[in-house]
């Protein structure tokens, strides 16, 4: 199928799933022009790239030339239109992919649910009465719905991994400092990551390879050569030492999350369970760092026009803007200890696995959820298993597992920094053994 046909099909499918409220813009004109140019290049004998004609969506916090970057908030409406595409968008298009839509998200990326006041809530394609997970909510939803095979998201505390798990698709949070964040609306500078969400592990790997590349304009990016993961994707997992993260990560889990973890452990031959002692404190550190940096970032708007934010986000941001420096610095110190502890585990094991969420997607609007007999605050607890790992900066992938009830959960696959190759090998092995986006939903 040529690029024009693929893009046309994607646009039709996106129109057909508008009830999910997963997109905030469908960029038909731009996408068709790009697709026509790709087809012309192919006819002229030029290589259109490894992602030739792959339609993709991007969370609406990525800059798109000529458009105001919304980041899911009315607070950004006064900003000037972007004068160029974000690095990640441009990188995928250089590889031949075609941007077709922008996707709904938690306001300013501050949430795990996909609930959004100005744009309405993103809904889960597996059951539209349930949350999609967030904050890269619409990005996971459009892939899970089969509208596009690939989407861009960002992950600060779990915002790629939580919606990937709850919608049932593959997701990757690369190593901190790997993929340039230029042109991605910031949330928490010391925790923000950009990464892909995809229908298959192969496309996740190909898109990650396209996203690598040095960019002196992101000061957090490590000046490190590209290390493609595609060539080793099918290498299997025979030589990898795998363990299960227990302790904090072992509970609370519903029956589906628990079964998926056991099954993944069996497939990856994880014979031991290890404990990350500082996990609970890592979550605490992530929470304090997040609220402090996000509050500081938006302080000028909080001073001038606080009511432009949604209520939930506004009150979090104000509280964050006044956090004492000692709390924040304690959190950054704990973060170093947490990272050292995880690095020591990852010196003994090539991969660690953990649940991505405690349970399947809760119903939209719920304040609490009950998991294994425990009542938990829904908006915070749905990210409790991704939250503690993010401050370490290691790469983490999610493999989806469909449940008997038609919903989904996910398993996190964790490797040492810069070892995305091992993560992708494990995701491919899990996919081959049944951790898949259901076939009927693949584009």
């Amino acid at each position: 199928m040529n690029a024009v046909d693929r893009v046309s099909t994607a646009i039709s499918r996106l129109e057909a799933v508008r009830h999910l409220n997963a997109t905030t813009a469908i960029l038909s004109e731009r996408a068709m022009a790009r697709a026509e140019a790709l087809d012309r290049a192919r006819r002229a004998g030029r290589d259109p790239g490894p992602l030739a004609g792959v339609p993709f969506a991007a969370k609406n916090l990525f800059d798109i030339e000529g458009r105001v970057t919304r980041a899911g908030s009315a607070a950004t409406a006064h900003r000037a239109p972007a004068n160029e595409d974000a690095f990640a968008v441009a990188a995928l298009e250089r590889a031949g992919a075609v941007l077709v839509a922008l996707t709904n998200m938690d306001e300013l990326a501050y949430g795990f649910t996909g609930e959004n006041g100005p744009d309405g809530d993103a809904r889960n394609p597996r059951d539209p009465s349930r949350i999609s997970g967030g904050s890269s909510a619409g990005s996971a939803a459009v892939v899970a719905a089969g509208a596009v095979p690939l989407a861009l998201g960002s992950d600060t505390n779990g915002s790629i991994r939580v919606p990937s798990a709850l919608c049932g698709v593959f997701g990757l949070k690369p190593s901190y400092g790997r993929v340039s964040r230029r042109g991605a609306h910031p949330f928490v500078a010391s925790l923000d990551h950009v990464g892909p969400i995809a229908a298959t592990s192969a496309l996740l790997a190909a898109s990650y390879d396209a996203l690598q590349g040095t960019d002196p304009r992101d000061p957090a990016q490590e000046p490190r050569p590209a290390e493609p993961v595609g060539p080793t994707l099918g290498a299997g997992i025979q030589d990898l030492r795998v363990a299960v993260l227990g302790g904090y990560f072992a509970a609370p889990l519903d029956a589906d999350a628990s079964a998926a973890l056991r099954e993944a452990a069996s497939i990856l031959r994880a014979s031991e369970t290890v404990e990350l002692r500082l996990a609970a404190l890592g979550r605490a550190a992530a929470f304090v760092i997040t609220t402090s940096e996000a509050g500081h970032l938006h302080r000028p708007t909080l001073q001038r026009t606080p009511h432009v934010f949604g209520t939930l986000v506004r009150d979090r941001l104000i509280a964050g803007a006044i956090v004492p420096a000692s709390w924040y610095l304690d959190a950054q110190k704990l973060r170093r200890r947490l990272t050292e502890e995880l690095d020591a585990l990852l010196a003994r094991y090539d991969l660690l696995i953990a649940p991505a969420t405690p349970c399947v997607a809760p119903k939209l609007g719920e304040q609490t959820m009950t998991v294994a007999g425990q009542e938990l605050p829904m908006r915070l607890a749905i990210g409790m298993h991704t939250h503690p790992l993010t401050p370490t900066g290691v790469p983490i992938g999610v493999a989806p597992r469909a449940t008997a009830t038609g919903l989904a959960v996910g398993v996190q696959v964790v490797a040492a920094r810069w070892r995305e190759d091992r993560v992708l090998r494990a995701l491919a092995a899990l996919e081959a053994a049944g951790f898949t986006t259901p076939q009927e939903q693949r584009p």
Partner: protein
Amino acid sequence: MRGKTFDAAAYVDAAAAASGIALDEAMRAGVIANLERTYAFARLLTEEAGLAETEPAPVFRPRAPSSS
């Protein structure tokens, strides 16, 4: 301030004013609730032994200017 006597409401009133953020009554309750939650997490961190002597995570590594 880090002990059991932490008064989130008093702190919010003083710190928001000092930060130039005007709170109405509707905002104030939500901000206090959020700061109390943050305090609960921050207090956990102080219970980890040896944290005072630990280097914070971010380390500034200036890069050499590019040759271009």
